[in-house]
């Protein structure tokens, strides 16, 4: 029983129930909108956590993949008349190919150098989005058409909430499966001891590249859907601050904890909304909350709380 409660399967069920019941508490479209943004961030964080939390490779450029995903589908559907059911997969392919191409040279680096290289990659992507105005609309952004399926337009917060909630459950299911598999153990071994993993026969470079591409595709899919949801995109979607936010979600919620990534996304998306009452003190309180968590729960929210619950159940 104790093992089941602490295992991911129970968490997945709980997540599905919470996501299904949450709309009962939503009073207006604004609540839905906030919830959708929580879900968007959560999916990216779950994917990024596979790379950062489990495989131990830092990426400070993940918003770049998010933004690129948004722009590829946006440009193809708005300027070239592609059907959204084709332009979204194309966005994933473009980001996957880019991530794969840069992964090998980038992942030869480690620690601060890896952080710098991914940071640079993210910045490069936003520079291109900002300057290639003929294609992207430049800093002013561009309008993106809604998703259309058989003549029916996906419109309205409730539908989008359902879609994103289903995607998050799917993402968590895939992530939990992956972590508890030979591939997942190899990834975690890369984090724990690169050389031990190699001796066990793990082609560490191959696995690092693999998970880098996978987490980039998570970000790209979410970015692409965000573009069609909000109908308007700017290069800031892929900006440096967004990349930092994603990493902060993973660290705050708890590295190497899939549910931690979700909690991190929830806290970091909701907190600024809740703190608007503090006016100009908002950022100060926000910073203080983050510092308090990291000081008192250095492993992140979910792993620390899980240890407490585990002790309680024993």
């Amino acid at each position, binding site marked *: 029983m104790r093992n089941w409660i602490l295992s991911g399967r129970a968490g997945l069920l709980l997540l599905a129930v919470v996501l299904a019941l949450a709309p009962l508490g939503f009073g207006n479209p604004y609540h839905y909108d906030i919830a959708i943004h929580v879900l968007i961030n959560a999916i990216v964080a779950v994917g990024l956590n596979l790379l950062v939390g489990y495989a*131990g490779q830092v990426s400070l450029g993940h918003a770049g993949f998010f933004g690129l995903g948004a722009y590829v589908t946006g440009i193809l559907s708005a300027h070239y008349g592609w059907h959204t059911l084709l332009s979204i997969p194309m966005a994933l392919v473009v980001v996957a190919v880019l991530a794969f191409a840069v992964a090998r040279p980038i992942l030869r680096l480690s620690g601060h150098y890896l952080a710098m290289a991914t940071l640079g990659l993210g910045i490069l992507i936003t520079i291109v989005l900002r300057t290639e105005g003929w294609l992207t609309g430049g800093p002013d952004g561009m309008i993106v058409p809604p998703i259309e399926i058989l003549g029916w337009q996906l419109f309205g917060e409730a539908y989008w909430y359902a879609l994103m909630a289903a995607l998050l459950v799917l993402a968590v299911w*895939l992530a939990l*499966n*992956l972590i*508890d*598999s*030979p*591939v*997942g*153990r*190899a990834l*975690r*071994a890369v*984090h*724990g*001891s690169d*050389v*031990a*993993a*190699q*001796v*066990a*026969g*793990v*082609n*560490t470079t191959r696995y690092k590249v*693999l998970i880098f591409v996978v987490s980039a595709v998570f970000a790209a899919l979410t970015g692409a859907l965000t573009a069609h949801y909000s109908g308007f995109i700017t290069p800031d979607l892929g900006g440096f601050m967004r990349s930092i936010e994603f990493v902060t979600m993973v660290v705050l919620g708890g590295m*190497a904890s899939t549910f931690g990534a979700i909690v991190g996304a929830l806290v970091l998306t909701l907190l600024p909304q809740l703190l608007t009452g503090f006016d100009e003190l908002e950022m100060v309180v926000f910073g203080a909350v983050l510092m308090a968590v990291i000081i008192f729960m250095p492993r992140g929210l979910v792993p620390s709380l899980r240890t407490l619950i585990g002790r309680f159940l024993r």
Partner: protein
Amino acid sequence: MTHLLETSNLTKTFGGVHAVADLSFGVEAGAIQAIIGPNGAGKTTLINLLTGIYTPSAGDVRIDGRDTRGLPPHRLAGLGLSRTFQNLQICMNMSALENVMVGRHLRMNRSFTAALLRLPALRRGDADCRRRAAELMDFVGLGDLTERDADTLSYGALKRLEIARALASEPKLLLLDEPAAGLNANETAAIETLIRRVAELGITVILVEHDMKLVMAISDRILVLDHGKQLAIGTPAEVRADPAVISAYLGAA
């Protein structure tokens, strides 16, 4: 007897310094082969050459007759070579059992799609892997600790855990890098028994060790290195009687 591992004229130089020079020796299949030598004799360099971390400056290493030049460690694992580390290389972010399960990596279904979808075949393979890993932990004397996180284990237990992980790949050749370092007399005696039992499984053992009592007790053959060169090779009795070894290493008056 066939040689499972063979080196010929193996040489590694670092900017003119011959860390290992012109070393030719063979390790018989099924034997316990010790490598000893004073500090700076070139033992670590030799290990790094055997395990693919360094590329030889000259000469070669052959496992089962196959030249290993240029093969990275993860490819050597596929040839049946496994090892433990002098300074532990345990994945502290995983449970003790999962560390051993990682050792079976090459014998697992490594399909990414199967992993993502958690297909039944993969689940069965995982359950089997978990059971074998638990058996191996039992084999090395850690049967009670399977549920523990690796970072809660004692130093002595972690040394054994590394051996269990190395055995999980079902290697032909196991290289133990100072398995008794940092252990007390009782623990060393237990490691001695464990190494014997590993050899009884038919696994060839290369033992790099400072503890002379342990080396003399369990080795079939001993290679003595000094200044990167082979000083002597033979049975414990032969090595012990070798005048060159006595003067250079065991300490003559």
